[in-house]
């Protein structure tokens, strides 16, 4: 609940400051930025309201014990994967290619798509 409250109060604050700024300054760029920020925070808060309905976190219980979070062991975190390094390289190629050579950018885009597919397959 604290996380949700955090985003709701941030969204309320953003609406307030956007309104105050427009009323005082009548300046369009800053007002748009603040209004967009308010919209984004409201969106996240809305998502969290939906998500928290299904959440049941032992971390939120004041007197929980470690055993309270125990359940069936379904696997462990992987501590290595080659995908992040290659994905970052591919994204860098896209950026560099935009500056130095469209061919490099195209190669980067293809690599990003292929690696993205690997990510999706691995995540299933």
């Amino acid at each position: 609940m604290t996380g949700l409250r955090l985003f709701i109060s941030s969204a309320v604050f953003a609406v307030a400051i956007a309104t105050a700024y427009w009323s005082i300054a009548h300046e369009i760029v800053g007002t748009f930025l603040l209004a967009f920020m308010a919209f984004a925070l409201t969106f996240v808060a809305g998502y969290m309201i939906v998500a928290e309905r299904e959440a049941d976190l032992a971390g939120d219980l004041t007197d929980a014990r470690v055993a309270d979070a125990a359940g069936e062991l379904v696997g462990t975190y992987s501590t290595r994967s080659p995908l992040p390094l290659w994905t970052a390289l591919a994204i860098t190629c896209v950026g560099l290619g935009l500056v130095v050579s469209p061919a490099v950018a195209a190669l980067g885009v293809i690599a990003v798509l292929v690696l993205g597919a690997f990510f999706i397959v691995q995540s299933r």
Partner: protein
Amino acid sequence: MSAAERGALEPVQRNDLLGWLTTTDHKRIGILYLTTSLGYFLVAGALAIVIRTQLARPDNTVVGAHAFAQLFTLHGTAMIFLFVAPFALGLANFLIPLQIGAPDMAFPRLNATSYWLFLFGGLVIFAGAASSEGAAATGWTAYAPLSVLKEGTGLGQDLWIVGVFLVSVATILTSINFVTTVFIYRAPGMTMWRIPVFTWEMVATSLLIFMAFPALAADLLLLFVDRNLGGHAFDPNAGGSALLWQHLFWFFGHPEVYVMILPYFGVISEIIPVFSRKPIFGYSGLVLSAFAIAGLSMGVWAHHMFTTGAVNNPFFSFVSFLIAVPTGVKFFNWIATMWRGSISFATPMLFSIGFLLNFLLGGVTGVMVASPPIDFQAQDSYFVVAHMHYVLGGGSLFAIFAALFFWWPKMFGVKLGEGLGKLCFWLLFVGFNVTFFPMHFMGLDGMPRRVFTYANLGQLPLLNLIATAGSYVMLAGVIAFAANVIVSTRKREPVGPDPWGANSLEWWTSSPPPEHNFHSLPPIRSERPVFDAKHPDVAARTPR
């Protein structure tokens, strides 16, 4: 599930180069972030030494005007985008799962991708130096319309745009990871109001990153389009606006200052109670003030634009003054924590006190330049250079060293030496103040920032010479730190899980921690679970 089956599921971490290149373990990614950002710090520091050497005397000829512009651009870019902010991300990567009792980050592969994007982004920025026209030379702020011009800002400026864009994407992805991890992956009993202050400060920082960095990314895209695809977003002659760059840039840029300082408020809030042998004073006040600072910092961007005459100065001045209130709350809390404490002056505590003194001066001059009449005098002068460095150098840098000395045993299983540590502190503290304090007077005497030479008038030659001497003392401090690392690594005297007698959960597990962080967890009933477990009699008497 049998022990054998469970053993088959246990991942095995490789210790060779391939293991580091493919790691998704938050601790290793944290260490990669920290070492990479320290590497960029060394490069940026070397550039600063060249800058100060050039300015040691009037009409010096160590470097020319264009080379000087590249030097201060790369220095500022590296310090801000590649060192101070990413160091905090590295520290948070290492600490957040340990402090909340989680086995890893919520998205380990995204975490690793963020790190590599940060590394490559930094390399792309520096790659501009190898181009025929040299690196970007428009300052870390890259103001339009100067940065739009192709003449004199060729490939290096484009690479700067791409590099900073990659770093900003990496930062946004990392902050998503932090918030998700803290919200979802807390250990049983670790409620939000029990998480350590450092983790809270990283939540506030992540929120700021969500709100501020997209504006930077949009700004960079517009600049790229203007430079390479015939756009006119910043061209007043074609219906654009040069001020649009400043609005978008500072909408990111001022919150970025707090992205670079809030995590270090968290560091100080972790260290001071440990070396004062007291619980932190005003836990909720510290947490709420972090969010007050974060919120207010989104409404002050145009105090960097007072002198344009195109913004509402009273609004931005008022909100800027307001930030002093939650910052003052934090100072009050830190001082109250130390008050009547049993203070020991180990190296992390010395750096923390250095942080308080330097940051206070940076904060006071910050309030001064938040006042438009003073800002009109100080704008673009060395007074602003002094103010900025007292906040980010005297503040963040000292907290960074405090963090290194404090958490080094947890990361590597050995303590850094106290003798060399104290030498490092005094060299940095004296060197820092000798370098940057005179800059206030240079600015008041009218010396503009970003000039590669200056007239032989009044106090300026003497003040510049003093500042340059101070920068070499700081260099000696950094060398003392490097020597400390080498000596401590060679000595290799292992430490236990909790060499400082600390409070938060990372000090429960071994140093360095095992692959998935914890073999066991203590009951978590306050924000000091390790202290509670070791001193149950005191914990029982403490009101909750």
